[in-house]
């Protein structure tokens, strides 16, 4: 075993020696994962390129042996959000040492290909810190394509995308050969159809829980209660004032991050979270905060501009924050996956947290790009316990200054849904009536009194059909409805003709539809011209705004509704008959 001791002051060569030693020693490979933690002291005060070299070498060392489930989040993170060619290439290579290829890995690999294909820089894994200067060197695209070939049958889900990349003719000569190999591997598998797709379509649970997990052992925030912050407006606040009394969704970022898939996307996703909260009427009850890793540079103005450019809502409940003192305490409380060179971040992971009403960490979403709905859901779950806590604690000073909260999120949701689904025209009403007819009548018991009611309804339908036919000058519809009605009556009258009923339903349906769809104004005008007195009388008696056009539409809607209702009644009647026979 290599006896090297690793410290923050170790040189890159010492680091490489240490990595090689633990990678080769049996039972020590797990220690490689410790070196992939962003906050490991060995990365402190090193430049971004140096950190890439060091982490890349750890990934290369991982590739030399079987990769465990515990290492998978680090590899997937690099494929998911990495933009450094060396790290992405190393992660793709290391993934091929994972002993359980599965379809869930393919989207990560494909996403990496789509993101890195225009930064296909040559890389070298021959020795630590080597940079390729030869045209025969590998690159991230080739490594990713080799990984897709390794996935073979498990990459079927991304076949179309891969074909699209291969057809684009954008790949270099060596990469094209690798793409062909990947396509062959997938195609061969499609022929075999031998993949077990039941057990392997998801990531291992340990991987999912490592990236998104509820914290059962919530640490209290007493140590940083008085930690001072400045928000996007330049207002001075404390941790307690911002995070106590309500659940809060917190993300970390910094404005000088040059990886668009990390900070910029995180803050953009936070804006999406805020919209989701607003849609559910929770924007006042669940707060959000984006805290910068780089408070020395990210002034209030910079924070406000960064948030504004990404459509972030910024007010008293939703803030962009910078810690104005004791950043290390904040870092320790959240156990942030970040490291620095001087005051500037050299590497960080994607991280979002949900804090409960006491400001304690209740859930975290780390490394992989988090889902906005999932984080909102997690915060929503905390509301019940938050409400109890709030009642116990009483109103806080800054809460009293805020406008009153809505009574219940359900009110907002129901109001929105009500407005959206309220029928606003005759066709809407007809559709609703039809829908309820189809959906409801089958379920209700069929009382005896319903039959004469339906007979009356059918008679009205017949009358409207003739009215429409007469108004539009098209008689096909009413004739079909009449024939259908006659057939239904015949089927009810004589059990031997029961099958005729089905044809009757069909004829009523088609006839009513034909009447309903012809809504030309010409027909209505003809009614007005021939029966002006009737229209006026109706209008006066009913005190309604009845016009020839509305009457015509009403008739059409009625026909449409009845066409569906008839179908339902017919089915319901048959079921009742069948039940009677069975008894």
């Amino acid at each position, binding site marked *: 075993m290599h006896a090297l001791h690793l410290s923050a002051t170790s040189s890159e060569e010492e680091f490489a020696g240490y990595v090689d030693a633990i990678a080769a020693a049996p039972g020590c490979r797990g220690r490689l994962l410790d070196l992939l933690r962003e906050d490991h002291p060995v990365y402190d*005060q*090193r*430049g*971004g*390129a*140096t950190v*890439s*070299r060091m982490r890349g070498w750890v990934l290369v060392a991982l590739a030399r042996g079987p990769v465990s489930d515990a290492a998978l989040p680090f590899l997937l993170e690099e494929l998911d959000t990495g933009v450094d060619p*060396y790290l992405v290439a190393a992660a793709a290579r290391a993934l091929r040492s994972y002993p359980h290829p599965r379809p869930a890995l393919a989207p990560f690999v494909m996403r990496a290909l789509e993101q890195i*294909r*225009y*930064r*296909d*820089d*040559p890389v070298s894994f021959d020795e630590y*810190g080597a*940079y*390729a*200067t*030869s*045209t025969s*060197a590998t*690159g991230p*695209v080739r490594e990713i394509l080799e990984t897709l070939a390794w996935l073979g049958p498990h990459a079927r889900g991304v076949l179309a995308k891969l074909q699209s990349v291969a057809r684009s*003719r*954008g*790949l*270099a*000569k060596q*990469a094209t050969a690798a793409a062909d190999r990947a396509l062959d591997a997938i195609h061969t598998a499609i022929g075999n159809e031998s993949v077990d797709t039941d057990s392997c379509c998801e990531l291992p649970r340990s991987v999912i829980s490592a990236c998104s997990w509820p914290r059962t052992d919530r640490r209290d925030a007493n140590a940083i209660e008085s930690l001072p912050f400045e928000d996007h407006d330049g207002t001075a606040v404390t941790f307690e004032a911002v995070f106590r009394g309500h659940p809060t969704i917190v993300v970390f970022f910094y404005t*000088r991050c*040059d990886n668009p898939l990390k900070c910029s996307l995180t803050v953009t996703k936070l804006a999406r979270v805020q919209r989701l909260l607003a849609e559910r009427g929770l924007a006042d009850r669940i707060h959000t905060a984006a805290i910068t890793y*780089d408070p*020395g*540079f990210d*002034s209030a103005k910079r924070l406000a501009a960064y948030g504004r450019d990404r459509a972030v809502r910024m007010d008293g409940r939703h803030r962009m924050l910078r810690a104005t003192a004791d950043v290390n305490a904040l870092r320790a409380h959240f156990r942030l996956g970040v490291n620095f*060179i*001087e*005051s*500037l*971040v*050299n590497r960080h992971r994607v991280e979002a947290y949900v804090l409960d009403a006491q400001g304690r960490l209740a859930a975290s979403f780390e490394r992989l790009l988090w889902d906005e709905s999932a984080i909102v859901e997690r915060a929503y779950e905390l509301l019940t316990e938050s409400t109890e806590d709030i009642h116990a604690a009483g109103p806080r000073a800054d809460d009293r200054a805020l406008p009153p909260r809505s009574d219940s999120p359900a009110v907002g949701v129901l109001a929105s849904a009500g407005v959206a689904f309220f029928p606003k025209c005759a066709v809407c009403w007809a559709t609703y009536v039809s829908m309820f007819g189809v959906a409801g009548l089958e379920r209700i018991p069929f009382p005896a009194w319903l039959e004469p009611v339906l007979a009356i309804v059918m008679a009205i339908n017949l009358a409207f059909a003739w009215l429409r036919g007469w108004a539009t000058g098209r008689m096909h519809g009413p004739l079909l409805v009449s024939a259908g009605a006659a057939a239904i009556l015949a089927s009810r009258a004589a059990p031997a003709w029961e099958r005729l009923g089905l044809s009757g339903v069909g004829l009523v349906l088609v006839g009513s539809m034909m009447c309903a769809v012809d809504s030309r104004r010409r027909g209505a005008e003809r009614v007005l011209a021939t029966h002006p007195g009737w229209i006026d009388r109706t209008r006066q008696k009913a005190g309604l705004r009845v016009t020839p056009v509305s009457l015509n539409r009403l008739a059409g809607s009625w026909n449409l509704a009845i066409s569906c209702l008839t179908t339902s009644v017919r089915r319901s009647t048959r079921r009742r008959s069948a039940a009677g026979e069975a008894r």
Partner: protein
Amino acid sequence: MTKKRKAAKASRKKTSRTRLSAALSAKQTPKQRVAMLAQAPLAVCESDTNMQAVLGVLRNTAEPTEVRLAAMDTMATAAFSVVAFEPCRNDYIAALREMSQDPSPEIRESALGLLAGEKDGFAQKKLLEGLKSPEKALVRPEKALQLLGYDVHAESYAVARDIVENPPSDTARREALRLLSADARSAPLFEKLLRDKNEKREIRQISASALQALNPTKLQDHARALLLDDSDYDDIRATSLEAIEQFGDPAHVAKDSDLLQSVERLSTTAPPKYKKGAKHFLSKYTR
């Protein structure tokens, strides 16, 4: 219309290809080859042969330097079309890394410049090595500092501070200060330089700009003090005036009678080009 466009495109491609083959021919004079290479970027990534031919010129140390530089520029121009350049990028970056150690200083500087623009780790490593150990330097220190400035994440601040302390040249010191203007921890250094009347005025101007980026509140304090000091240089006072006018708190400035009196004096005693700014300032705050 579409046919015409297609025909025009095909014609452009053909012309570009012809120029490229002429540029690669040793029969032409270097001047002609440079002119033709400048017009050939479209053809570079049309085929692997074209790209390898241009890279061949770039790598060939027997070719005239100006032709090699033109070949590098052609590749760099082609790289702007990111999608079309996709198949060429791997070879291009490898060639630039190779060229960064070329015997010709111009080729080295250009290659490192292009790589630094891509935030390439190899280039950063070489540049930092050169700053720490001058015997390994591939380019002049001021150039290295400029190129490192393309990436705030390069570990260049500590080296830049050393250069400010022990500068190999005035230009290198100036570039080191420019680099540090993105370093939050260097704000006190810039405060000191801004107030130091013995410093070169260019350095004090750089310090004012840096302070505006790093700590605007401090700059306002210093700018006021500089404006009140009638013995300081007019251009420095004019810069301070500009900073207060553009970024100061208008309500606070309008009430500051000492400041307004000082600007009044500047508007009468300063050279004409600074008088104008002072008068504009007064018209804004003494209405």
